[in-house]
């Protein structure tokens, strides 16, 4: 059936440019359904709340990052402007550069490894475990740690990693994997203890996301592959992984962003010690501000972290926007 060519001019359609009314119309069309203030009010309430609890602190931190504020000066209200001194102190300190190195290790062997493990485990679970009940049980088992509050995770692992009589050392000794107890909370090792606890705690999140992403892939694609006679590995590389690309990226980013504000396990397990060898930047900001009362410096730390995460958040939101848009079209 011919539907008439798209450019065919109907009676009322002027082929010469846009009609007058079209150029003059309102950019945001009138809404007949609710008064104009209603959506503004609906959004306004949460926005005002956020302005109060996020914007106010941000401004406060930006202000004090350039002052010599400490706890005493704060109470006496006699701080003074010191320019970039706090930033210089922070950036030139070995405490900061050490913490950046710690963060790099944490991002690689904590966050990064978690996502890699999650991909392997989630896909193994889905593709190779055939019994539905067993599959569900395993899924619940491996996802449980995520539901624990960080303070319990911290306490539990601290307990198990106790060097003298902890469960882990004992188990490793009796299996013959180590010959003498590992000093889990010594310098150089304590950061790894935190990373182990974190991997235990949070691999569950990307795993659950990726597993569910795999579940929601259309079976039709796989039936087609079966007809073509493609083997398991080929199907994995050619179909599953490409189709899960976005889901894996989201899982990674969700974890990655948490990593920058990661404080609680450090605080519970090692308090950054011994001798600041397991400190991460966010923890130092917390420690300097809350325990050591160097508010100006803590603010500088916070702003540096904030700047880093702002860059990543922006990139992430751009990506999320793209993914959701693609989904809306599909």
């Amino acid at each position, binding site marked *: 059936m011919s539907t008439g060519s798209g450019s065919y001019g109907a009676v009322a359609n002027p082929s010469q440019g846009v009609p007058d009314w079209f150029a003059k119309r309102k950019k945001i*069309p009138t809404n007949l359904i609710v008064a104009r203030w209603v959506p503004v009010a609906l959004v306004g309430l949460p*926005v005002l709340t956020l302005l109060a609890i996020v914007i106010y602190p941000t401004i406060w931190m930006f202000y004090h990052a350039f002052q010599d504020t400490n706890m005493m000066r704060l109470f006496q209200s006699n701080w003074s402007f010191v320019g970039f001194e706090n930033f210089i102190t922070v950036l030139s300190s070995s405490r900061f550069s050490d913490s950046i190195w710690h963060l790099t290790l944490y991002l690689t062997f904590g966050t990064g490894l978690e996502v890699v493990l999650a991909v392997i485990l989630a896909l193994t*679970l889905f593709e190779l475990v055939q019994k539905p009940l067993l599959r569900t049980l395993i899924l*619940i088992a491996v996802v449980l740690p995520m*539901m624990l509050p960080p303070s319990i995770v911290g*306490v539990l*692992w601290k307990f198990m990693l106790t060097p003298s009589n902890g469960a882990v050392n004992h188990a490793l000794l009796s299996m013959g994997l180590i010959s003498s107890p590992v000093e889990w909370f010594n310098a150089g090792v304590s950061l790894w203890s935190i990373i182990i606890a974190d991997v235990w705690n949070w691999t569950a999140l990307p795993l659950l996301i990726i597993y569910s992403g795999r579940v929601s892939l259309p079976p039709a694609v796989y039936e087609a592959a079966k007809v073509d006679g493609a083997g398991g590995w080929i199907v994995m590389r050619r179909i599953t992984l490409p189709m899960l690309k976005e889901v894996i990226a989201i899982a990674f980013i969700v974890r990655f962003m948490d990593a920058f504000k990661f404080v609680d396990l450090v605080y519970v397990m090692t308090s950054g010690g011994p001798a600041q060898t397991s400190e991460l930047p966010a923890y130092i900001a917390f420690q300097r501000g809350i325990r050591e009362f160097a508010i100006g410096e803590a603010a500088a730390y916070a702003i540096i972290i904030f700047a880093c995460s702002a860059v990543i958040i922006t990139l992430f939101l751009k990506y999320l926007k793209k993914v959701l848009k693609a989904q809306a079209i599909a």
Partner: protein
Amino acid sequence: MMSKKNYSLVKWLLLLFLGIWVVFTLFPLYWQVITAFKSAAETNLTVPTFWPKEFHPENFVAVFADPTNFKALVDSFIIATGNTLLSLFLGTLAGYAFARFPKQAGGENLAFWILSNRMFPPVAILIPMFFLFDALPWGTDSYMSLIILYLVFNMPLATWLMMVFFRDAPRELEEAAYLDGFTPFQAFWRVTLPLVLPGMVSVGILCWIFAWNEYLFANLFVGSAVRTFTIVIPTFTSGSQSLWNLQMAFSLIAMVPPVTLFIVLRRYMVRGLSLGVVKG
């Protein structure tokens, strides 16, 4: 391309790895459970025991010998529930506006800005808010302070996810309700809300678990008049010795609500955990 033999070897290796992982995740939980039944002396033996010599279920009662410990659970519950209701209320309003009147509500960018607050590093908020709340009538050591503070991470999540759920609920149904003669509020109440209710419940539970488990804010802000269980657990000590058995017993009790909710509703919660990307 891999040969058939190699492929089945890889399969077995992967399954073995999965098995090891399951042991790795379950072992600490197993340890937690058996420790909860041990006596205090047994937890401090030089050679740890992998099965309790004798069971002490009374540990679970001993936890509550100090009535403030039970109050800690109640406090956590009040704060988590209060914060969830507030997050859900604000999030539903804004999420609806973003889904149905995107342009008038400030557009996609405002929605993304709200979400971005969830990723805000808490340290940047902690210190200023501490001094701000100190100056406010309710002070820092109160339900109110944590209920409000937890909005920082829960309200953006609730807003964002409710927007995703409202977008999924067909707009046509609401329009049909308008043509039936229902006002926007009636249409929302009669048609849209029942449709998004399952989503709303899962968002609420996610928020509730996050608030229930929160540690950092609670640790700094409250501590005497109000104490959440998360900050109470590490304080179970006798002298310099941790009372591991009581810590584990108490944490097992505190884990029951989030773990149960999760097992029952995990299917719905994946959507929330992946920020709406995975349908679950």
